[in-house]
């Protein structure tokens, strides 16, 4: 273990702050309270928690579920911007690479918004300003008239070339899927590019963490494909960089689900995935399994952050946990709005 970071990263400082923020995340009891509240009560509850700056700032413009939603997005962006502000050296580089997933999110939001001809203001509210894109670029994106002009506006970014390549497919089929896939793949491609896991101590843990995330994503895609039983080629959705499957293996495993389950049980994630796999076999519901999968990834991230305390892992695990919390609160608020019962909402939550 690195006692003093030689690359001028300030792991100890950032991790102390991250751990402290981690402690502020909601626990099971608070979720329990939230599931019994109405949307405006949830907003008030959040106003008394660490979401208060956002609730106060947005309270006059929005109300109810919209207020909760926008406050959650802003809070997410604030916390993740803080992470970048604190960190230095390699740590900064790694975190900014990972936070590029919000750029991917914003690109997808812009594509979908423009595709469905949504107002610029509505698209703007859905952006999460935690990535690399600045306000000027996001402003250009939301003002675009057509999907083609969104792709043009992104020409200078890492997403430019892959999107331009996927544009033909889009024009042929009229569906956004090829473009969204291009965005996802670009994100994962750039994530691990140029990192030498074998030699650099700081990046070794980063690579390990991301391999896990890629593996989990591949597992999820494999199950979705196995479930749909369609004729889609699984390797189209395969993301490079994981350690669990090869693209060719995935194709054969998708056809044989029992083998896939057995394979996962033997893998390094077997311990974490155990409950998820049991849930899949007993309930046979894909949504339940996906939630269990998310919880398993959270568990594995938590495990890694304890194995490598002075590394980028605790920060990434915090990012995951925070995102999950925001998703949970959103699910509760939306669920209460449409009048789901407490038990039904609880099934939708992902908790450790």
């Amino acid at each position: 273990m690195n006692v003093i970071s030689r690359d001028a990263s300030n792991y100890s400082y950032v991790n102390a702050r991250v751990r402290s923020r981690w402690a502020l995340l909601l626990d099971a009891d608070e979720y329990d309270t939230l599931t019994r509240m109405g949307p405006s009560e949830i907003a008030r509850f959040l106003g008394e928690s660490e979401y208060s700056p956002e609730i106060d700032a947005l309270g006059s413009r929005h109300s109810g579920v919209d207020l909760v939603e926008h406050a959650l997005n802003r809070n997410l962006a604030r916390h993740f911007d803080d992470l970048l502000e604190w960190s230095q050296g390699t740590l900064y580089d790694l975190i900014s690479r990972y936070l590029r997933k919000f750029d991917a999110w914003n690109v997808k939001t812009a594509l979908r918004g423009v595709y469905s001809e949504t107002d610029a203001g509505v698209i703007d509210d859905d952006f999460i300003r935690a990535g690399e894109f600045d306000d000027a670029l996001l402003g250009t994106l939301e003002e675009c008239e057509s999907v083609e002009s969104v792709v043009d506006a992104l020409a200078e970014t890492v997403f430019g070339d892959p999107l331009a390549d996927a544009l033909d497919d889009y024009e042929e089929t009229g569906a956004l899927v090829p473009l969204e896939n291009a965005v996802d793949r670009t994100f994962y491609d750039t994530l691990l590019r140029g990192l030498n896991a074998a030699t650099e101590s700081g990046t070794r843990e980063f690579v390990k963490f991301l391999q896990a995330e890629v593996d989990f994503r591949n597992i999820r895609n494999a199950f979705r494909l196995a479930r749909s039983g369609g004729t889609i080629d699984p390797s189209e959705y395969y993301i490079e960089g994981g350690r669990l499957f090869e693209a060719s293996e995935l194709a054969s495993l998708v056809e044989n689900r029992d083998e896939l389950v057995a394979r996962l049980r033997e893998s390094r994630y077997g311990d974490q995935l155990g409950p998820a796999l049991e849930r899949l076999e007993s309930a046979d519901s894909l949504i339940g399994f996906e939630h269990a999968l998310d919880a398993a990834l959270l568990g594995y991230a938590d495990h890694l952050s304890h194995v490598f305390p002075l590394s980028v892992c605790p920060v990434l695990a915090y990012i995951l946990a925070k995102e999950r919390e925001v998703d949970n609160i959103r699910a509760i608020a939306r669920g209460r709005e449409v009048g789901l019962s407490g038990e039904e909402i609880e099934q939708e939550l992902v908790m450790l």
Partner: protein
Amino acid sequence: MYETLVAAINMLGLIAQQSAEAGSTVAFPPAAGAALGVGIAALGAGIAEGGIGAAAVGAIAEDSDFFGIGLLFTVLPETLVILAIVVIFIV
């Protein structure tokens, strides 16, 4: 950082060896040895405090209640130096 430290200690070892070979009874003046000991101990304490201090400041920035405990843990490696000072009184 560690490389320079190790190199410095190696060099000191060489000096001590050479003066022993020169035939004098005391290879290295005891007072100088004690002084070096304290110095190196302080250096070690400083290295240890660097990381702890950074973490403590991070924790205090999030929640000022950590001030007392943060300060305590930051100066904990200082005990090394105090133990090293004992050597001065022995030689």
